[in-house]
């Protein structure tokens, strides 16, 4: 399904209460605007559903775009942590633009910089920032996992650092995998460079995926933010090569690329990147405790 062709005028017509509407980005199946509602800035997300089923609220008969949007909204409504983007005042709604159905909702507009942009411009994070990043994003993963859900798309482009306080926020729950609900995908989804090994085992995803898959993706992000290098692109000429490396290659310890990195933090990142989930952390609390020890050991 194509990204809906919308202008600021269209958005204004759909949400008359919004002011100062601006185009933000087109990504995946969405087009995103920002707008002020009741004095606060929000992200306004629009998607084009399958017209056959638009407006039908029975999930079993919904198209995948609407189902995903519904799951994204439901997840934001369930979770409550400052490290996960929150829902705005407009829930999942439908509209019609020139005979084309549109679905849309609003979410918190996070003022800040995403880590992809940061990596391009400023390079690596300090140890203190890495510790904060690990604690904040794992908190977001924990919040989602409470509801037996997995984010599945943790990557630098989906993590923002808030300008206001430096907190990290995980965005975009459009690919959330719900272990307790019907599957919405017919093939692997997410960003291959940040896949976990078990994310490739699509046929068995219900049996093999859990929050430890998200911890692996977080490990890849931490590795990049610690060293400036992706752990699995060495010698890779294609996405398939990267996937092969994710499945088979044990990356160099981050401390070998950045010697001033505390050994403990380097080991934690490497452990997140273990091929088998059993070799990562069995709970997010254990992971957070290990990260907090880097802080108390004076590594920060």
């Amino acid at each position, binding site marked *: 399904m194509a990204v809906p062709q919308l202008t600021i005028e269209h958005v204004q017509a759909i949400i008359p209460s919004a002011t100062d509407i601006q185009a933000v980005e087109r990504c995946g199946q969405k087009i995103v605007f920002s707008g002020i509602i009741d004095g606060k800035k929000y992200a306004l997300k629009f998607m084009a559903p399958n017209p056959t089923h638009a407006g039908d609220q029975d999930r079993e008969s919904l198209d995948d775009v609407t189902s995903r949007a519904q799951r994204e909204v439901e997840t934001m409504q369930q979770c409550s942590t400052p490290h996960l983007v929150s829902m705005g005042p407009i829930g999942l709604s439908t509209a019609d633009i020139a005979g084309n159905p549109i679905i849309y909702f609003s979410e918190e507009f996070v003022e800040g910089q995403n880590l992809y942009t940061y990596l391009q411009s400023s390079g690596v994070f300090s140890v203190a920032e890495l510790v904060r990043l690990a604690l904040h994003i794992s908190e977001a993963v924990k919040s989602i996992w409470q509801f037996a859900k997995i984010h599945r798309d943790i990557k630098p482009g989906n993590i923002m650092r808030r300008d206001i306080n430096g907190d990290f926020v995980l965005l975009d729950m459009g690919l959330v995998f719900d272990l307790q609900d019907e599957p919405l995908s017919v093939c692997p989804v997410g960003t291959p460079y940040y896949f976990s090994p078990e994310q490739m085992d699509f046929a068995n995803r219900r049996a*093999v995926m*859990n929050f430890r898959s998200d911890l692996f993706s977080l490990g890849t992000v931490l590795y990049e933010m610690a060293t400036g290098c992706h752990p699995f692109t060495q010698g890779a000429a294609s996405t398939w090569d990267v996937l092969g490396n994710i499945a088979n290659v044990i990356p160099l310890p981050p401390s070998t690329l950045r010697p001033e990195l505390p050994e403990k933090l380097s080991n934690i990142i490497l452990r997140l990147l273990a091929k*088998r*989930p*059993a*070799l990562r*952390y*069995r*709970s997010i609390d*254990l992971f957070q405790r290990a990260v907090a020890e880097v802080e108390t050991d004076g590594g920060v």
Partner: protein
Amino acid sequence: MSVLAQCGYGRGRKIEQGFHDDVMHGVILSPRDERRDRLEEAVHQWCPSHPQALVMFDPQFYAANLNNPRDGHLSEYDYYNNNSGLGRTHFSGTRIQRYVRECLDYQHQTFGRNVAYLISPTVLFDAFRDSWSQIALNMAVESADYHRDLSSPQPLLISLVISETAFQTMDAVEEFLDALTEIDTQGFYIIIRRNSSSVNNAMESGPFGRFMYFCHVLTTINEYNVIVGYSDWHSFLLQAAGVTHTATGWYQNLRQFSLARFQPSRGGRRPRKRYSSAPLLSCPLVTPELQDIYLADLLPGVLSRSTYDAIIRNGPAAGEAGWTDETACLAHWHSLNSLSEHVSARPTQKARIEEAEHLMHNALTLYNQLSSQNVSFDPSTGPDHIYEWQDSLQEFRALSGL
């Protein structure tokens, strides 16, 4: 780590004496082997007098899916008696819920805080990918779920009874670990079912090395407590791998688990008396082996340095009559405990592994020294099992990267 008493038939005064002599630090009770009223009474007596002791009740539910088991007093327990003779079809979700509920409720309501852990029911399985292993996993998950809803229960150990042959394939071990480490529980009580019940028959090096790795992933990596039941001399290696406690008993069938324990007895002679030698990592026969060592003037190097040594120090043959089953059992616990202390005194896992290597090296040196003095040993005494362990440790080191 410390050694626990693996109870069986003929408990006598061994437990009380073991606590008194400080040679073991807990008990795993066997409902198959003693009357229910006596077992319950013992638990209620031990707790006030030994508050630090780890007392546990192995429900032995796994006997319920054996073919015509010799299950002794197990039929006195409703959680077992209602459910004996179970086949694959008797493990639907609803039935598993009932088995778990009955088994955990019995322990929780009967023993309360007098046991250190509640132990979940399980079934025996031969391979990590067979249908019984899936049933065992379902029972484990159900147990953790049910335990969560109990009112102020003691912590839960998930029990597993696994055939040694299951550790032939590493892929399957890893898959099972992935599933097991999803369970939110305090730890695991693991029994390895041996193919043979013969004395001192070391597990093959590959499977045992993989079992060490299995324990390492559960304990060191995932911070579960792991208690390995029906263990013996190899306990010090399991400790080097990270195991929290091991349990061993007074008869051979309480030191390595085989299905013979649940099959009709074939009778046989009374076993010959053996001495537990920590330096040799084995149990030489009091006569002639220990006597020959004494005559070669090498006895001090073989003794485990316990108070029980006084009985045989001045001549094993002369002291044999005083070397009772109870003394042999206490001396065995003492020897295993002293090895555990050696290993656990090391500050890191790497150092503990090196200490285990050191103990094996010293034992082999001692065997060579004895051999040079024409002391010969029955194959069941050693030292072949040590070579097997050395290979196991290499396998473990390769897998764990330690």
